[in-house]
């Protein structure tokens, strides 16, 4: 009896799809809610520094004078507090996980628009500057 049960299981496993996902050949499973990594739209940021204050790991550093917004992706724990508290919705949560890092760093620096009254900065500054 148990022998036939075993045969049933073996056959089922032989002809069914694998339970594991062939990552990284196939992309990882993700949902709309998945917290992958933080993204910024530099044109909307007003350097209010709320995200910097709220960040539990102090991964975000905002320089008001230089008008830069900096995130250390290796410190970031992807809790999405900055995204929730951002008054201008310049921060968003991408549902893609960041790929593994092969070098030291993870610092991403953006030049942002700053407070509204001033002129918006040109878009080419939006590229991340590696440090």
């Amino acid at each position, binding site marked *: 009896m148990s022998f036939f049960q075993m045969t049933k299981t073996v056959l089922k496993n032989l002809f069914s799809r694998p*339970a594991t996902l062939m990552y990284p050949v196939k992309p990882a499973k993700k949902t709309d*809610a998945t*917290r992958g990594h933080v993204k910024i739209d530099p044109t909307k940021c007003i350097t209010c520094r709320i995200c910097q204050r709220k*960040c*539990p790991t102090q991964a975000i550093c905002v320089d008001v004078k230089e008008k830069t917004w900096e995130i250390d992706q290796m410190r970031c724990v992807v809790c999405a507090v900055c995204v*929730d508290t951002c008054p201008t919705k310049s921060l968003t949560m991408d549902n893609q996980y960041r790929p593994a890092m092969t070098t030291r760093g993870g610092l991403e620096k953006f030049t942002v628009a700053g407070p509204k009254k001033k002129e918006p900065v040109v878009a080419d500054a939006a590229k991340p500057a590696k440090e």
Partner: protein
Amino acid sequence: MSKQITVPFGPQHPVLPEPLHLDLVLEDEKVVDVIPTIGYVHRGLEKLVEKREFTEYVFIAERICGICSFIHSQTYVQGIEQIMGLEVPERAQYLRTIWSEYSRLHSHLLWLGLFADSMGFESVFMNAWRLREHILDDLEATTGGRVIQGVCKVGGVRRDISPEKLDEMVRGLKGMEHELQDLSKVFLHDNSIQHRLRGIGVLSKEDAYQLGAVGPSARGSGVAIDIRETGYAAFGKINFKPVVEYEGDCYARCAVRVKEMFTSIDIIEQCAKKIPDGPVDMKVTGAPDGEYFSRAEQPRGEVIHYIKGNGKKNLVRHRVRTPTFTNIPPLVTLLKGCDLADVPVIVLTIDPCIGCAER
């Protein structure tokens, strides 16, 4: 009398996912004494409470443990809410109950897998983790994180679950129940597993109570203590009975966990039926002033968060007593008199989570 020798067990050991060190004093093959040592993964998370605002600290409280993460944040948040006298919306309470039962399911499945692996039953290990994956998928779809949900906040929860998704989750669990039955059959009725577990590592009811065993370790010995019965979150409105076994051996502790999975599914179903409409969070102003002992039932047992605030944004003191920490004295008693070959199985039956115990 034969010569005594000391055999170190851990901190790195194939059956231990986390660093617990035991010095086993042996006489021939019998363990006569055990000296436990912890302190390999201390991170000082409790001290951080002085440096972070109490609302941000939820995320740090959650990271005390990687398995019972949701319940840690829930317990912390409940403590803060009690100090501040906040009435959390009912829907948020129900959602917290659902997620905490989900994390109990995923923790028990993880443990069953590891436990089977410790006995050399690797196909069951894979099967348990395959089922756990469905639970994690649901958690990720509803909260955004697989193991670190990050969905609790002071005054409610950060996300809502739509009624359709809730239906789908309950249907998924119903579909899984049959597979879980198959899995539990292996743990409860398989001959070789019974041979390995029955009568081994017996903890009497008196010992369990005196030494402060909590969770499945206590309930396996007939001590029917389940903090969920105090009715925190929405547990007060749910019908359920704590699972209790009376033998006190490894089999009983395993059986408690296996049966608790079905209780969890039942609780989630009841929640999905009873959950009211309404808001999921509320506005929080001010800061906690006072102290509170917050308790909750984790998959491993009772967890206590002591929180003290002085009316400022940063708390003064936060102290966590985790279930594994209190389960170490019973573990020492359990191990005395057992065979060396049974040590890995007995250690795993208390479900040690050292990351929790040391914080």
